[in-house]
């Protein structure tokens, strides 16, 4: 019985052609008859074939590596040669007629940096893009957040002047009062100062009032309070958001009327530099302020408004703006925070236009506007004494 190694010797000789003819034909017969043997031969051939291929591959790899290192080493000494040539340049340039060869020299750090850049270019670009995006989203997001936080009453430094009543303080006070009265009978009067307050003034003698729209914005109910602390219930009849105007009507049954109004409404525009003043309730008491008409347009060039140099405060909103002769020329609306004493008032011409269109529509009671101005020739304190009965606190409940 032959071992596998013996067979291999046989195959080896067979492939090398080292077998005698008789032996070869015998082997070929056996191979044809015995598939196991044929299989064995095939495996032997695959094995030796792979081995030789492996050998060749190794040799080729070495050759290529040699070529490569040849190529690399060829490039470096040439740089050296160039350097030498550079040194001898002066002497030889004329002799050989060769132009000096410029060489690009890159420092080791720069080489490393270049390799790094080559390798990570894409990643770094993505990172940079993400960073830029993140920065801009953050900035935009912050900006959007800030604008959404800003209420309508104070966008871009424009402040509307309705007064937020110090409710807590008042609550405290009323609570104290309730405690002291606890032994007495039921409290006679419930104090509810309301959430906001502004100023309003009479439009007609029979119960129409004017105030700013933003004073009554979001109101559930409105109370009008005059100087004598008399209160009337009122309802908005019409509002003009664009010009910040609201017309109210007193709905109380026992309301008889304001009496004849001392001022008239100016239908035209007033001149620059005109002396103007206003009355209002920025606090519990009536407050007078004056100044001049400083521009015939309002915030950001809005032509529906005047700019006046009156120091106004929250609570002044909706107050009347009168000129020296006692003509009502506007309705105080707001002020600009970042500008010294720049207040804005809706022009009376817009108010008139609004009233005209309302009477033309014929809704509600007719509007009997005062025709004549009773202030002619009177001094300011006299005007104010008459005027003060027609200026009211507008209290807003939400």
């Amino acid at each position, binding site marked *: 019985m032959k071992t*596998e*190694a*013996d067979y*291999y*010797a046989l195959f*080896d000789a067979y492939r090398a052609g080292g077998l005698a003819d008789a032996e070869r034909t015998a082997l070929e017969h056996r191979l044809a008859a015995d598939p196991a043997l044929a299989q064995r031969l095939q*495996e*032997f051939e695959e*094995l*030796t074939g*792979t*081995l*030789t*291929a*492996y*050998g060749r*591959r*190794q*040799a*080729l*790899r070495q*050759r*290529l*590596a040699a*070529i*490569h290192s*040849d*190529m690399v080493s*060829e490039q470096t000494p040439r740089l050296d040669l160039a350097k030498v040539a550079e040194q001898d340049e002066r002497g030889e340039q004329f002799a050989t007629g060769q132009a000096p060869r410029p060489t690009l020299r890159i420092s080791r750090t720069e080489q490393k940096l270049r*390799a790094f850049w*080559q*390798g*990570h*270019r*894409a990643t770094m670009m993505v990172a940079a893009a993400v960073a830029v995006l993140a920065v801009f989203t953050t900035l935009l997001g912050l900006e959007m957040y800030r604008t959404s936080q800003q209420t309508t009453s104070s966008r871009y430094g424009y402040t509307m002047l309705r007064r937020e009543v110090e409710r807590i303080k008042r609550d405290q006070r009323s609570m104290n009062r309730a405690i002291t009265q606890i032994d007495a009978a039921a409290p006679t009067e419930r104090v509810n100062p309301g959430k906001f307050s502004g100023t309003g003034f009479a439009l007609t003698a029979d119960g129409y009032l004017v105030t700013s729209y933003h004073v009554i914005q979001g109101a559930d109910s409105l109370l009008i309070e005059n100087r004598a602390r008399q209160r009337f219930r009122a309802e908005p009849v019409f509002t003009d958001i664009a010009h910040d105007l609201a017309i109210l009507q007193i709905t109380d049954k026992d309301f008889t009327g304001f009496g004849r109004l001392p001022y008239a409404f100016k239908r035209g525009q007033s001149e620059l530099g005109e002396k103007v003043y206003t009355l209002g309730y920025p606090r519990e008491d009536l407050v007078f302020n004056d100044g001049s008409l400083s521009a015939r347009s309002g915030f950001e060039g809005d032509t529906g408004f005047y700019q006046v140099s009156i120091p106004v405060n929250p609570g002044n909103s909706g107050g009347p703006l009168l000129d020296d002769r006692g003509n009502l020329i506007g309705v105080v609306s707001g002020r600009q925070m970042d500008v010294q004493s720049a207040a804005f008032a809706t022009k009376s011409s817009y108010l008139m236009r609004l009233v005209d269109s309302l009477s033309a529509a014929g809704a509600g009671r007719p509007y009997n506007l005062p025709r004549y101005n009773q202030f002619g020739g009177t001094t300011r304190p006299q005007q104010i004494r008459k005027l003060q009965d027609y200026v009211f606190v507008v209290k807003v409940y939400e």
Partner: protein
Amino acid sequence: MGKGQPSYTDEEFVAAIRRDDDRALAQLYRLHFPMISHYVLQNSGTDDEAKDVYQEGVMVFYEKVREGSLELNCQIKTYLYAVCRRLWLKRLAEKTRFSGRLDDHEPFLETGAEADLERAEEKERQLGTMAQALDLVGEPCRSLLEGFYLLDKSMQQLTDEFGYTNADNAKNQKYKCLVRLKKLFFNQYQESA
């Protein structure tokens, strides 16, 4: 390379390499290396990686030429570019940090290089298994087989080197080693398949 070497046309290259002309191979190697090196460096590779990929590509080309089975229907340059491009793609996929397009600067055509490469990969696997099997077969079998098959030493040389009494002994030893290698090789080859 400015050494006054003859510059070959593509046909002459193929013919010269078929004759196993060393200078033609070196010339070819130098001619196209910058292209592949540029390509690999452009696509987040290093100098060493460029060298490896290029050498592998040249090997595929060389072996095809030597086998006489090369059907070149395009320039050698394009063929090499296609092969190396594929190889580099594979490498990048293995590195797994790659996603996206490669930026090509040479026209990339269907050259048949893809199919050649698949066969080359199969062969690569076989040769890899052989390398492993040779590692496992142990001394002195490894040196003996390597001496005979890889370094083309004659039986007589090996007999002297390994101190066998005569060439027949050495031969017997060689066959025994072959049997061992065969077992290792086919086992591993089937495992890895």
